[in-house]
């Protein structure tokens, strides 16, 4: 294929993509004389005809609109636009300049002791007020524009704390949970009502009488907190006090697509109680939040979960006693499941790109080997080397 033929191939490809014949006269002329290029044209035409037949074109479901509204209604109402937002940044700048000029005028008048100073002061204050409002409106507009323009669908950056602004949402959830549980309305301690920093590391107590500084409740759904709180009254110790566990909070944040807060809450739950469900959820959400190291840590914790002596999973494969894998691994950890189906010794799982983190499965056996009596899984050559994370 010479240079002319390559140029013709490009031209033919473009014409086929457009769905018409080559337009340039020299291309048509070349096609009449060159059988190879005619073949190229015919091939591309045939592929174009088959593409429509080969490719699926699924359509969105009928419930699309309903689900959109369900998603919207599950969220907080859209924020109101500021009254002066439409003025934009230029109006804000102009108003600021006007305020400055008036203020300077006022100062001059004031130092000269004229009776225009009162008027000047009022004008300056009014101008300053307008400028402040316009600046506030422009700031809100700018933030919203940057958010929408730059990356409206961006995942939250990994953080170690639930953002203070989310406390109100947590509290709304608590109220909802109380209504659902038909709990008697109770006044919560002030310290907790403010969502103070000290309380964020603990479970949120729903019933009255519980101290904000109470010991962390077991993670999970609403359940009685049997232990009396150190600062609580004797009556509160005797009354079962349902609590909102970290897992509930984490699930709530997951519904809100706030992966960072969900990961944080799951990790808090993991500190209170180690189980495969929570560890996997913590790893998954940490991964979604971009906190790769935390994800690896949590997933490794899941893999290193309580040993299942002679346990059997759904496929009838028994786990090696003391092997470091909980009985629920297949249900919770799909990539490990795939690694088990295949002989994945030495296979690598990449978690993110920056920084590059990989998990190397060192000695994963196949299920057939397991059925023959060999150990199913063995990560690493010694007990501490469950995963090789680099």
């Amino acid at each position: 294929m010479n240079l002319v033929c390559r140029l013709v191939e490009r031209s033919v490809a473009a014409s086929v993509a457009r769905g018409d014949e080559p337009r340039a006269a020299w291309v048509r002329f070349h096609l009449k004389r060159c059988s190879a290029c005619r073949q190229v044209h015919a091939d591309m035409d045939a592929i174009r005809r088959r593409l429509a037949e080969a490719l699926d074109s699924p359509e969105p479901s009928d419930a699309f609109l309903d689900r959109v509204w369900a998603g919207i209604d599950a969220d907080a109402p859209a924020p109101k636009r500021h009254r002066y937002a439409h003025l934009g940044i230029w109006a804000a700048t102009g108003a600021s300049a006007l305020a400055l000029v008036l203020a300077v005028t006022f100062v001059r008048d004031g130092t000269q002791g004229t009776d225009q100073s009162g008027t000047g002061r009022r004008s300056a204050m009014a101008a300053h007020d307008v400028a402040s409002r316009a600046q506030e409106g422009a700031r809100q507009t700018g933030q919203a524009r940057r958010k929408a323009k730059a990356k409206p669908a961006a995942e939250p950056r990994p953080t170690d704390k639930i953002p203070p602004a989310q406390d109100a949402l947590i509290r709304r959830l608590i109220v909802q949970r109380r209504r659902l549980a038909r709990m008697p309305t109770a006044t919560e301690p002030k310290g907790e009502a403010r969502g103070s920093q000290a309380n964020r590391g603990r479970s949120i107590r729903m019933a009255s009488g519980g101290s904000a500084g109470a010991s962390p409740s077991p993670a999970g759904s609403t359940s009685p907190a049997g232990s009396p709180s150190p600062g609580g009254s004797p009556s509160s110790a005797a009354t079962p006090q349902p609590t909102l566990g970290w897992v509930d909070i984490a699930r709530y944040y997951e519904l809100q697509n706030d992966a960072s807060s969900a990961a944080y809450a799951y990790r808090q739950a993991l500190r209170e109680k180690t189980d495969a469900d929570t560890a996997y959820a913590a790893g998954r959400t940490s991964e979604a939040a971009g906190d790769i190291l935390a994800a690896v840590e949590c997933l490794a914790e899941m893999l290193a979960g309580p040993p299942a002596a002679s346990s059997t999973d759904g496929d009838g494969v028994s786990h090696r006693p003391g092997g470091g894998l909980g009985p629920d691994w297949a249900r919770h950890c799909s990539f490990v499941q795939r690694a088990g189906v295949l002989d994945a010794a030495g296979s690598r799982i990449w978690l993110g790109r920056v920084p590059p983190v990989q998990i190397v499965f060192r000695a994963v056996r196949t299920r057939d080997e397991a059925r023959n009596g060999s150990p199913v899984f063995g990560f690493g050559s010694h007990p501490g080397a469950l995963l090789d994370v680099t």
Partner: protein
Amino acid sequence: MEAAMTGDRAAVTDEALARLAANGDRAAYSTLVERYRGLAFSTAYAMLGNPDDAEDIAQEAFVRAYRTLPGFDPQRTWAAWIMSIVRNQCRDAVRRRKVRSAHASVELERDEVPTDGADAIPEATLLETERLGELREAVAGLPDHLRAPVVLHYAYGKTYREIASGLGLPESTVVGRLAAAMRILRRRFAAEVRR
């Protein structure tokens, strides 16, 4: 605007509907969703290759768009805005998917074709089905920036203008990418299509 207030929403521009929706008119936003759900879904499907993921992404994009409606710039078109949200959602989904993709290709390779009743199907039909499947896989194996226009054009019959709107590209770039995809596919399938 008047038409929107009187219920004749077909004649109302997207931007006017967006302003109404920003002021709390849910029906206006429903109209916008109905107008663009097809393009949003097909674009997401073209970029992700999975209808379930595409539907989730498209729905989430509309939810996010509603949430940020007060920040909608009237100077921009609604189509460009919502599609930019869809594309960003898709890119995030692709990024998340790459995290877990180490074994995905292996899993796809091991998907077994059901063989029940295969003997009753004529051999020519099987061959044709197999070739179409190979072509489908070849399209799936195209680079992302080439695959999306191919799917939108050949599977959904979208015009270049619609594709350009969906992907945020000039129309000439769309044609160029379709041509590049066609050259790649021809090199791989030249022998098969001549049979």
